[in-house]
């Protein structure tokens, strides 16, 4: 069992998915044990792969191990079922397999009693299959297939309670919005393939580094690829689907819309980073700008959001934007480090929110409050997640966020750094606000408060494991910790673009970001602790700003307007053309012509045998003449 056998990782959940789909109904407990077992097996198989990689990683010029088989081969078109294991994939795999295992266990409690309990686990298994394939794919075609696979599972699971109209709408919205980016990704893949003649990621990168693409061509191609990442990772301007995606069950939000699928965009850009480096600098500037815009939009919108899951969703967008900024500074290390710890603390936050929803059946923060006494474990876990998200020393988020600020300070303009620090302040504000409103103060809805109860152990255990990881995962930044675990050093010496990155800890950056975080917490405490009277006054004073944020910068309205006035109007024109020209004239017209001429011509059929016989003889004679003429 080594890196060559990496195909087993997606194969095990795939087999489980097939079994669940076919026989799930007849299995005891609807097969949840099979789903959890398959994903846990995937995680167990991941460990020897990791060990094998750690043996190999020190070798000179190690750049991952490729295995797999060619499926269909045409001239330059090679359909390949190929898997590549390298440091980048390993970090993603660690998050995907481990967090999925925990969340599946958590779901046993959360989804208990749901009429489609079995289907939930089936779809989750399919998702894990697709996600692992996406991470391991060694060629862009397989990556694209898996990419669409996770998008499809996301659609299924957002619309899991499709009896609710809002859930069905949200699923549709997520699918269509990400599809816009996916088309861009497909165009990008085709552009890259057209010149290089291969889909293999490694060969494309070598081709680009040898100067095979012209600068403009490559820039265009990578920007199209980035469009896919924008859609999947909910970056501006395709971010609108992620808050709505919270209509799905909370474990889905935790796994798909926080820890794994949405970071696929970040992973894709990190994978393709050598291409971005070779391309025109404009490409990376675009990544930075989009990432920073997303950070600022989401941080401000989160301050006024009132749905507990939506706030966490905005914080996810915030984090994704930060990762994009790190990639804009072409630091794969910083982005992947943040991705790694984010997987833990964001899943933790969502599962904490899930426990609250499970315990109270309320989602609006104005109907919650004072839950810390009723749900101490959840409150503790949520507090850990909040502090990690804000980036308070020594929680994991602190190290990861610092890393991003560091690389931004080194590589990007000072204005970007300033915005980043400001976003840390905003993050502290809205995360503290959420915690205060939900867990402290006076209960606002007595019924919900009385009803509230701590989550069952099957739910709280995974939460506590994640809480522990949210505290300690950040210490991987240190070389000593990395070496103790068997890595060559800290994450900087494990995942890097060109050369290993030393652990750096500029005090200025740490202090300024910590100050921003603490300042934000204090600000939020002043505004929202207790009756939140000050916050209300502030909202009244800055009414326009409040409304702007509350209405999510009117993006959804603008898109709706565009759909109504451009897409649907254009669609009506095309529909008219289709109905009248294509259908009535083209299809029905030719059919009508056939009917009419058939009706007219049927009278030439006399029904008398001698006439038919005469026609046959005539035909034979004509054929004979033709034959003779042709032969001579």
């Amino acid at each position, binding site marked *: 069992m080594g890196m060559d056998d990496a195909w087993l990782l997606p194969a095990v959940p795939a087999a489980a998915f097939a079994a669940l789909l076919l026989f799930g109904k007849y299995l005891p407990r609807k097969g949840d044990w099979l789903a959890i077992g398959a994903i846990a097996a995937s995680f167990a198989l991941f460990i020897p792969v990791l060990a094998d990689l750690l043996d190999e990683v020190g070798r000179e010029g190690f750049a991952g191990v490729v295995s797999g088989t060619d499926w269909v081969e045409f001239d330059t078109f090679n359909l390949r079922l190929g898997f590549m294991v390298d440091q980048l994939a390993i970090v993603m795999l660690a998050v995907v397999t481990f967090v999925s295992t925990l969340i599946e266990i958590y779901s046993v409690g959360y989804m208990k009693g749901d009429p489609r309990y079995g289907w939930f686990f089936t779809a989750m298994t399919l998702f894990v299959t697709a996600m692992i394939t996406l991470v391991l794919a060694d060629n862009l075609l397989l990556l694209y297939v898996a990419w669409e696979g996770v998008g499809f599972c996301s659609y299924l699971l957002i619309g899991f309670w499709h009896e609710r109209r809002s859930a069905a709408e949200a699923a549709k919205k997520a699918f269509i919005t990400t599809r816009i980016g996916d088309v861009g990704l497909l165009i990008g893949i085709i552009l890259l393939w057209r010149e290089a003649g291969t889909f293999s990621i490694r060969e494309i990168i070598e081709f680009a580094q040898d100067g095979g693409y012209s600068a403009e061509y490559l820039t265009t191609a990578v920007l199209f690829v980035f469009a896919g990442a924008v859609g999947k990772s909910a970056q501006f301007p395709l971010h609108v689907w992620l808050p709505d995606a919270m209509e799905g069950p909370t474990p889905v939000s935790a796994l798909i819309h926080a820890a794994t699928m949405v970071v696929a965009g970040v992973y894709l850009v990190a994978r393709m980073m050598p291409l971005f480096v070779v391309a025109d600098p404009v490409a990376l500037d675009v990544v930075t700008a989009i990432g920073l815009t997303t950070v600022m939009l989401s941080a401000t919108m989160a301050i006024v959001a009132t749905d507990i899951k939506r706030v966490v969703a905005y914080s996810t967008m915030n984090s994704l934007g930060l990762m994009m900024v790190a990639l804009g500074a072409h630091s794969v290390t910083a982005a992947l480090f943040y991705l790694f710890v984010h997987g833990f603390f964001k899943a933790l936050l969502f599962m904490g929110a899930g426990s609250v929803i499970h315990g109270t059946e309320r989602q609006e923060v104005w109907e919650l409050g004072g839950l810390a006494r009723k749900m101490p474990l959840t409150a503790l876990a949520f507090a850990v997640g909040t502090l990690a998200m804000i980036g308070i020393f020594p929680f994991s988020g602190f190290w990861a966020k610092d890393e991003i600020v560091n690389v931004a300070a080194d590589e990007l303009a000072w204005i970007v750094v300033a915005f980043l620090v400001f976003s840390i302040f905003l993050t502290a504000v809205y995360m503290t606000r959420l915690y205060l409103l939900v867990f402290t103060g006076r209960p606002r809805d007595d019924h919900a408060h009385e009803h509230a109860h701590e989550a069952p152990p099957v739910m709280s255990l995974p939460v506590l494991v994640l809480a522990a990881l949210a505290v300690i995962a950040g210490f991987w930044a240190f070389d000593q910790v990395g070496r103790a675990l068997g890595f060559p050093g800290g994450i900087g010496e494990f995942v890097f673009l060109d050369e290993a990155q030393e652990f750096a800890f500029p005090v200025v950056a740490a202090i300024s970001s910590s100050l921003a975080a603490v300042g934000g917490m204090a600000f939020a405490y002043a505004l929202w602790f207790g009756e939140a009277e000050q916050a209300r006054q502030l909202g009244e004073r800055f009414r326009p700003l409040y409304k702007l944020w509350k209405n999510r910068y009117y993006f959804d309205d603008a898109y709706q307007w565009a759909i109504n006035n451009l897409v649907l109007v254009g669609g009506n024109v095309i529909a008219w053309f289709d109905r009248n020209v294509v259908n009535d004239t083209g299809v029905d017209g030719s059919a009508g012509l056939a009917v009419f001429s058939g009706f007219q011509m049927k009278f030439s059929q006399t029904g008398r045998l001698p006439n038919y016989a005469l026609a046959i003889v005539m035909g*034979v*004679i004509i054929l*004979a*003449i033709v034959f*003779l003429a042709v032969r001579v």
Partner: protein
Amino acid sequence: MTYEEGIFYVVAGMTVIGALGVVVARNVVHSALFLILALVAVAGLFLLLSAEFLAIVQVLIYGGAVTILILFAMMLTRVRDVPQALDGPQRPFAAMAAAAFLSVTILAVVGTDWEALGATEKINVIPIEALGDVLFRNWAVPFELASLVLIVALIGAIVLARGEEGE
């Protein structure tokens, strides 16, 4: 003109007369009698072609069984000998079509270089033993299938002609 050719023209003339009689006779029974003439003459042609076995089969099956069958059918369907009703309205077209076909085939026969295709000058005698040998050795399966066809046709004819119960 050799005596062989003389015999050929006599037999060929009988065949054509018989055939002509079949298609133009004003009386159906005459038609049937002309048919017998034509069939027997064709058997003569077979003899001339040194196919004695086929000539015997021809006389037995056609001259005997088939004509008898046709006469029975005439009797049962009571085709009355009303002269003007025997030919259909498309007779002129039928004549034209037949003439066109005849000219095309004769053109083809005349226009073909038979020597080049390996035709010999004389009729090659085929021994009946050799024919039987080939028929039951190389063509045994088609031969048996032909028997099957006959059986099926027999049963089919009975089923069709018998009619339904109570009819």
